[in-house]
């Protein structure tokens, strides 16, 4: 059933993505929910036992670690509730199934600080209610699920009434739709309509690692020091057999793929033997072997230098330049935001655990990553504070005010205050036609956003930059910093700087290489 849900969501991913109200190229709901389901399905697959409780639990844990984006986190909460509903059961009957759906919704509501109606939460609630009602009439799970789905569709149709922005754009809530798609897929699988295949790797997920359970922050197990990763290309690759046989070579083994391409990842003492084994099955590609003891030592040395403070800072960002800037401001670990891919809960957990400090401050730098950060916080053993930064410039401002002598508590206070002082501007392109506050947007138009609101639309970048800066200056700011993305040449950025200095002689400007994808310029005004 899970696999059915995941597969169908993958197929409808684009449809769900298209519902995203905001026409900006960002971590999309469909993709995020799919990846979360994928993580859940993988874990469930790994369960040898057909025992429902165990499978559900595995799925819940998998989604917990693999959760990406706010929608992914909420989905993982739903799964958590559902799996709790299956506690102590090896199989489930109709009534318990319905109860579990209800419990899923309740758990999700509890998991969010400020539940908003008109989102996946409302849809999940109606699904649970409809499922329970249906149990009065029948004991057939398929009928109950169909009823639940119908209830959900009704709730989904109502979401524009509850969230005005949905009405304005003329769509239903993406998260809600995503959940229903999953249920639909599950239904199809139950009915035997679709061929349920093992969840496949595709190029988007090729870089995901198998979720590993967080340790108490100890450095990696150096019993098997060579981290070995490669692709095997061949025919009829016996992935399951490979998994069984490669197990003896070390730990953290992961073998995923299809009959023709497999990806192998293992920590071993004998990388040569692992390679030899796979050579017999096909050709080897993209081979990476690293010595983790060496890497760990280097890290220890580096972190000793940073660890003069009693706390460490972890931040999320995308872009080589931005990464460097964050490191230069004292960040211990930068988590890659990924291209339209929000980091998973696990990515954040790993980064937190990698720092040697027992107190960590997290800068999500994106409002879609805040929930995953909260989830990571609840998993790790350390004292974690999350500064609710919604953009990288906010994160940078928070870092600038820090002094080495600041205590953990003082730092948090300073940082929370600092993010309020910055206004963030973003320049990107529209991924679809849309309409906002009466402004018509065509796909490909250049958009200028200020603190998340689309304020300027035009056909060329220069016009939008000028208009955006004018908007930002309404707030009496004096210093404007521009970070140019990977699609902008340095000469372009310099020309822009010269023009802006002429146009706004009262303002101090700074230009830096950010290297971020999709956003031509990130602008901060202070």
């Amino acid at each position, binding site marked *: 059933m899970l696999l059915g849900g995941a597969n169908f969501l993958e197929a409808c991913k684009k449809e769900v993505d298209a519902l995203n109200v905001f026409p900006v190229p960002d971590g999309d709901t469909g993709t995020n929910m799919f990846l979360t389901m994928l993580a859940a399905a993988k874990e469930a697959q790994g369960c040898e036992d057909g025992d429902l409780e165990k499978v559900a639990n595995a799925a819940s844990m998998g989604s917990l670690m693999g959760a990406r984006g706010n929608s992914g986190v909420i989905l993982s909460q739903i799964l958590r509730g559902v799996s709790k509903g299956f506690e102590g059961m090896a199989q489930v009957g109709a009534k318990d199934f319905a109860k579990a759906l209800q419990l899923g919704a309740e758990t999700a509501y509890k998991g969010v600080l400020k539940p908003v109606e008109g989102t996946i939460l409302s849809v999940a609630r109606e699904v649970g209610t409809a499922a329970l009602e249906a149990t009065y009439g029948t004991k057939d799970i398929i009928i109950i699920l169909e009823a639940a789905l119908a209830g959900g569709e009704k709730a989904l149709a109502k979401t524009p009434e509850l969230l005005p922005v949905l009405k304005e754009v003329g769509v239903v809530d993406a998260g809600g739709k995503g959940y229903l798609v999953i249920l639909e897929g599950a239904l199809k699988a139950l009915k035997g309509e679709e061929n349920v295949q093992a969840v496949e790797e595709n190029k988007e997920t090729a870089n995901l690692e198998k979720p590993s359970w967080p340790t108490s922050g100890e450095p990696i197990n150096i019993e098997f020091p060579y981290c070995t990763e490669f692709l095997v290309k061949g025919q009829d690759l016996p992935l399951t057999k490979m998994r069984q046989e490669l197990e003896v070579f070390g730990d953290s083994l992961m073998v995923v793929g299809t009959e023709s391409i497999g990806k192998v990842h293992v920590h071993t003492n004998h990388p040569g033997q692992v390679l030899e084994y796979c050579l017999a099955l096909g050709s080897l590609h993209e081979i990476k072997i690293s010595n983790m003891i060496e890497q760990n030592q280097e890290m220890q040395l580096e972190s000793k230098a*940073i660890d003069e403070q009693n706390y460490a800072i972890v931040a999320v960002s995308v872009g080589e330049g931005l990464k460097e800037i964050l490191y*230069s401001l004292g960040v211990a670990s930068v988590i890659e935001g990924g291209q339209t891919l929000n980091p998973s809960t696990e990515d954040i957990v790993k980064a937190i655990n990698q720092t040697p400090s027992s107190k960590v401050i997290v800068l999500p730098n994106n409002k879609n990553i805040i929930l995953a950060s909260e989830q990571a916080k609840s998993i790790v053993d350390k004292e974690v504070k999350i500064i609710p930064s919604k953009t990288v410039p906010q994160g940078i401002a928070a870092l600038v005010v820090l002094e080495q002598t600041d205590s953990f508590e003082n730092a948090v206070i300073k940082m929370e205050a600092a993010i309020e002082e910055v206004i963030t501007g973003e320049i990107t392109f529209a991924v679809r036609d849309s309409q906002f506050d009466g402004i018509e947007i065509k796909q490909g138009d250049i958009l200028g956003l200020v603190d998340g609101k689309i304020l300027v639309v035009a056909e060329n970048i220069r016009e939008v930059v000028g208009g955006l800066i004018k908007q930002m200056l309404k707030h009496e700011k004096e*210093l404007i*910093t521009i970070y140019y993305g990977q699609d902008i040449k340095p000469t372009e950025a310099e020309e822009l700087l010269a023009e802006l200095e002429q146009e706004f002689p009262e303002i101090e400007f*700074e230009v830096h290489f950010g290297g971020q994808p999709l956003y031509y310029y990130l602008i901060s005004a202070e």
Partner: protein
Amino acid sequence: MEKVKLVTDSTADLPLELRQKFDISIVPLNVHMEKEVFKDGVDITTSFFYPRLSQMAELPTTSQPSPGEFQEVYKNLAQDGSKIISVHISSKLSGTYQSAVLAKNMLPDLDIAVIDSHSVAMGLGLIVLNAAKEIEKGKSFEEVIKLIEHLRNNVYIFFVVDTLEYLQKGGRIGKAQAMLGSMLNIKPILTLTEGVVTPVEKVRGQKKALERLIKLTKGKANENSQIAIVNGGNQEGAKRVEEKLIAETAFREFIFSEVGPVVGTHVGPGVLGIMVLNP
């Protein structure tokens, strides 16, 4: 009436007229630049120094005057029976105070009081000027010593540097501190706490830096404060500080001075500072 003479060092940045007016003796520190040694304020001036500072391949170094140099000055001044008060740059920033103490110990027959100002530049300068005025009024050796000891607890210095590089190379702050924010043109605001350079905060942009300087000054100043505006090769910046102080406070009279090469080597060109003395 007791005859009391004042001695300080070249880091006090006291302009010539004031030195002559109050008969203040200066013992110069040494600036080692491009294989030559210059006496601070004697053989080398700020107008020569600052334009060259950022171009030099190797950063100049500085060293304290020798005890022998202090001895000579003390002996000269004491010839007419004067008592000597010798006030100097913070002992945490330079070995000058040590040299003076050694010299005093070699002259047990003379009445010499060597005092650590816990300060530098015009912070030290303001203390010395106030002491000089009291001596002119006829205050005694003991009274002036007491005054200086009181004043040194009521001097506040806030300055902003263009880069922390010079402070780090000169060994006045740690490397880790210096590196933070080096990519982003961050302007660090610093002060002197118990004679040691300590960070106050970091801001981005010249304008913000000026704003913060003024705010910090207002925080410590009262209606009787004496205020000095200092700069290192940054006359323009000093003017803007003055404009802002006039615009935002009731203060109208300021002492202007340029930070000498010894301190300049350690803070770098572009430094701007405000010194407040509350008598």
